[in-house]
């Protein structure tokens, strides 16, 4: 091409050094990654919507599932998740302040803001772990029917949920956890519940003020409460006691709810965790003065993009898992 006659404009187009998007290679690649990761998360959230629309009449109500706040007893729906959201937005703010300080080449401010960002991320991951532990441990306990539906118990006088321990009797029976070594090699129980089905059924018959709540949502947006006769009849469908939630059984209702909860918040939590790790690496680089010598803090900007993206995803997870 050197031999051809070129005008000035052609030179500036083909001669290299063009930046049509006005962003550096590294930032552009981070944007590409964010776009593809956003599509992955959208896939997860939309498949959650798919399952929810499929079982729209029986889906668990998030307000009744996530009601706990650490160190406090009682029913506080959503406050803790709102707190977690705020922590993540706050750490986004310290991150963008670090980026801003980086533009002004203020090393010490970048160190402080990066440190605060890492702390915020760590609090969030810790809260998420606590949320998981509470969800897995369970609240009141329930009975699962032949069709895999969940029957929960309500105190007829107060209208509040009744725990299995409130009414189940203790029968003189020995219930052993079923292990692989005791039967067919592919069958075993993950955990042993604190009451057997018999104990729950007998206790239910002996306590007249306990009613059953099914998964079906009424027009008022609440779960259907059966009367005493219906409850007694419904309880005969029960096949096992469920306490807490895992990938196969879920005392809160549809098991798909638990599956998506573990999958989506887990995948997001993993992003936060890797974000914290990357932030720590950049944090040490800032302390060592790597970017001071390089003359610019673009690495902080790039990791900042990733960190804000994690926050952005949480905004959507918060809406579709906890609010809608």
């Amino acid at each position: 091409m050197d031999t051809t006659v070129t005008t000035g404009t052609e030179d500036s187009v083909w001669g290299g050094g063009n930046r049509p998007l006005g962003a550096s290679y590294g930032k552009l690649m981070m944007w590409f990654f964010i776009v593809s990761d956003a599509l992955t998360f959208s896939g997860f959230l939309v498949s959650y919507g798919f399952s929810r629309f499929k079982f729209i009449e029986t889906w668990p109500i998030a307000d009744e599932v996530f009601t706990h706040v650490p160190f406090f007893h009682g029913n506080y729906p959503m406050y803790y998740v709102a707190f977690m959201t705020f922590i993540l937005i706050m750490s986004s703010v310290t991150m963008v302040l670090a980026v801003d300080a980086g533009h002004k080449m203020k090393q010490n401010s970048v160190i402080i803001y990066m440190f605060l960002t890492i702390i915020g991320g760590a609090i969030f991951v810790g809260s998420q772990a606590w949320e998981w532990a509470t969800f897995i441990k369970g609240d009141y306990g329930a009975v699962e029917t032949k069709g895999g539906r969940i029957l929960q118990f309500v105190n007829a006088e107060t209208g509040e949920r009744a725990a299995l321990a409130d009414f189940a009797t203790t029968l003189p029976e020995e219930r052993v956890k079923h292990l692989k070594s005791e039967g067919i090699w592919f069958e075993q129980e993950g955990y042993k519940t604190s009451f057997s089905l018999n104990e729950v059924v007998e206790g239910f018959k002996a306590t007249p003020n306990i009613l059953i709540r099914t998964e079906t949502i009424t027009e008022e947006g609440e779960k259907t409460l059966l009367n005493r006769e219906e409850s007694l009849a419904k309880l005969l469908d029960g096949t096992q006691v469920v306490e807490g939630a895992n990938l196969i059984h879920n005392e809160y209702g549809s098991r798909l709810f638990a599956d998506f909860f573990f999958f989506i918040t887990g995948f997001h939590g993993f992003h936060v965790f890797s974000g914290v790790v990357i932030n720590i690496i950049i944090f040490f680089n800032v302390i060592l003065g790597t970017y001071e010598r390089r003359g610019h803090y673009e690495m902080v900007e790039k990791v900042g993009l990733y960190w804000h993206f994690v926050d952005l995803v949480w905004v959507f997870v918060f809406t579709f898992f906890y609010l809608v």
Partner: protein
Amino acid sequence: MAHEHKLEIFRGLVKFKSNVQKIWGVLIFLTIVTAVEVALGITKPRFLTHNYFIGMKLLNWIFIVLTLVKAYYITWDFMHMRDEKSSLRRAVVWTPIFLVCYLIFILLFEADYIYNVFKDGFMAWNF
């Protein structure tokens, strides 16, 4: 590398003196939006849960709109999309929006169909 920041939000209604001030301003706005969401989620006003728009409760529409508002300000001010060239902005924003809208459309329609099969079909699943 966009070193100059555009300091106006709400289409020029609010203009900040420096980038740091704008960050705090956006934080306040995002906090207010989140607080509104949580307050609505806890109180669940009756006229919002009993009125529907395109098959979904008004309350849920409000949540989704507020989420998109929050997403806009996180992307535009925290990720500095406001300061990027329009070509980069459009490439990054419209591609996922188009694909996600398409995905939402096909999957939710399919889910509603399966819901009707479960409801009207001869298969018992709620036993």
